């Protein structure tokens, strides 16, 4: 092929790709399409390393959708939820966000991981699409922009509670060892908070061990940490790597207290660390024992769907995210009907509506700051109690 022809073909392809990229990216004049229901999208990690969270969240969304559509939907019109798998990485989240936005959804729930949110949320911000994050706890998520909010309280609020509780259980704690995944935004953000909390309590970490999300063997780091004779171990890891690390810690002889962060706040850790999960301390943004009508309804729906099981925090938060969007849509639609309204303007008004509201949710009463940060009043600390078979267990709330 001659250089000239190559240039012509290249220019043609570039033009075509720009035209294709433009398709669906200009939502300014598009009307809201309510054919089949009011469109909302969700982007969850249903595959890859973080799939354990996505599976929990999917159940929450399904229950919230049933609840919303069972009680009249959006003023008589059903809420239509499109669910996309983001995998567990940033490119997957970016692609899924773009796809959902191009579909004309009014708002997005997700992505599952903070690491993904820092990559995908700016896309929604640029395109003017409201995002309600159900599980991003890293510092700086709502600050991405006006359209980004979350119902998951940030680590700085929750993480120190577990440290405090560990000191209540064992006041003589002196030597803390810290582990975190250095290639994960959630882990690096949370460990900073954990380490600050430890120092404030006079527990300067004796060692800080860095891991990677995809690590499965931690003997090296554990051997080094155990040489320091820690009496407390603090983990900021995701469920799979964290579960493996706990199992290896216990197998290599560590018997002291273990505090874990939000990444391990899922029953999906049970099959990984099995009997060794027992005794793990985790601060919670959700309590199944919260005695409110909203939580009662959620509990009832979850138990009916899951054979009497207790819902995990991630499920409750995902349920809350869709509940918030649903209620905001109902209010907005009453003021001005959604059908046929300009999509871009409606998205902006919906974001304002989300931020203005107050919501009675399974997490308790929540509101938002003008930046989109959740305002939540009640937090808890749970300790994992494994059943004798070592395969199932529960997060027992500590009074």
């Amino acid at each position, binding site marked *: 092929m001659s250089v000239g022809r190559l240039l012509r073909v290249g220019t043609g392809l570039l033009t075509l790709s720009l035209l294709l990229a433009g398709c669906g990216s200009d939502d300014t004049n598009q009307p809201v399409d309510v054919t089949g229901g009011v469109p909302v999208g969700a982007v969850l990690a*249903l*595959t*890859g*390393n973080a*799939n*354990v969270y996505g*599976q929990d969240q999917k159940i929450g969304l399904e229950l919230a959708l049933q609840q919303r559509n069972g009680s009249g939907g959006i003023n008589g019109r059903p809420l239509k939820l499109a669910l996309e798998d983001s995998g567990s990485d940033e490119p997957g989240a970016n692609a899924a966000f773009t796809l959902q936005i191009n579909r004309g959804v009014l708002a997005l729930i997700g992505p599952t991981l903070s690491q993904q949110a820092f990559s995908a949320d700016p896309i929604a911000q640029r395109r003017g699409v409201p995002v309600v994050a159900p599980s991003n706890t890293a510092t700086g998520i709502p600050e991405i922009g006006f359209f980004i909010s979350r119902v998951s309280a940030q680590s700085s609020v929750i993480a120190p509670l577990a440290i405090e509780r560990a000191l209540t259980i064992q006041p003589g704690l002196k030597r803390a060892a810290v582990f975190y*995944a*250095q*290639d994960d935004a959630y882990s690096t953000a949370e460990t900073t908070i954990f380490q600050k909390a430890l120092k404030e309590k006079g527990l300067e970490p004796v*060692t*800080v*061990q*860095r*891991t*990677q999300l*995809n690590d*499965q*063997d931690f*003997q*090296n*780091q554990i*051997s*080094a*940490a*155990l*040489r320091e004779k820690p009496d407390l171990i603090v983990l900021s890891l995701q*469920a*799979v790597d964290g*579960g*493996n690390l706990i*199992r*290896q810690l*216990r*197998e*290599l*002889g560590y018997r002291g207290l273990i505090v874990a962060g939000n990444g391990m706040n899922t029953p*999906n850790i049970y*099959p*990984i660390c*099995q*009997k*060794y999960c027992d005794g793990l301390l985790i601060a919670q943004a959700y309590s199944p024992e919260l005695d409110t009508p909203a939580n009662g309804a959620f509990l009832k729906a979850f138990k009916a769907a899951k054979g009497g099981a207790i819902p995990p925090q991630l499920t409750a938060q995902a349920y809350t995210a869709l509940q918030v969007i649903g209620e905001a849509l109902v209010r907005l639609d009453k003021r001005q009907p959604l059908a046929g309204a300009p999509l871009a303007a409606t998205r902006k008004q919906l974001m304002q509506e989300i931020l203005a509201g107050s919501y009675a949710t399974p997490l308790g009463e929540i509101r938002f700051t003008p930046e989109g940060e959740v305002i939540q009043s009640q937090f808890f600390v749970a300790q994992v109690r494994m059943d004798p078979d*070592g*395969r199932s267990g529960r997060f027992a709330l500590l009074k």
Partner: protein
Amino acid sequence: MDLLQILVNGLSVGAVYGLFALGYTLVFSVLGVINFAHGAVFTLGAYFTYLLIGGAVGANGLLAGFQLPFALPFWGALPLAGLGAALVALLVERVAFRPLRRRRADPLLALITSLGAGVILVNLIQLLVGAESYAIPTGALGGLPASFSLLGARVRTVQALLLGIAVLLLALLTLWLEGSRNGKGLQAVAEDAETAQLLGIDSTAMVRLAFGLSGFLAGVAGGLVGLSVSIAGPYFGIGYGLKGLAVLVLGGLGSVPGAVLGGLIVGLAEAFVPADWSGYKDAVSYGFLFLVLLLRPRGLLGRPLPSKV
């Protein structure tokens, strides 16, 4: 950290890499191409082991709730899982490699078709059993302790087993290659398939044998790693696949002892990274590979490829 503890940590991790790379090596030695579906076969070995010991499929996937009507002890399940993985490897050979070999296609095409086969297998696993993690119960080793002390170093029993089994399989494989008719036939095909064919050696059968053995080794390795660190979803073989590739090149393409030596060296290189910096161990092991290849372009035990005229 004590030198002995570092050695134990490094060798136990390196044993997994070596076992993994052995399978790569067998196929490479007879076909001259990397089988990128090897990681998926390794993953399947772990799932087969889980099912054979009586594990139930979770709530997601087409096989939700499925459980075999029997449960085997771990040591019974592991070789069977290896056989299951061997069958899958043979299927990969039949579908992704043989048609191209018959057409004398560029080996690069087989690399791509094997990559495709691997992706399809991983997606099939997810479709059937979901994406959640599974774990072989910690009590699968019966009365053995979870860990033990060795001259002051702390060793997980499962890691010691991994190392022992890797060494045992290497020894058996070497004995078989050097001392059996089929083993020699395999080496002859690896040296020169066409000449071997003229001498009456069925090269197609030898290729199948290499794939079967490679699948068996991957299946056994998958089962052992599943026991050691749980089965982190359908994609959990991918990381090992990349590391296995580095080990294969480091040890010397097509060299069986090189695969094991490369695995152990990479494991040790990672273990010698100070624990505080172990988040960077991949950079160290690949950097080490880079340095070795600068000094020995054919790897540690690689031989010059025969020139074909």
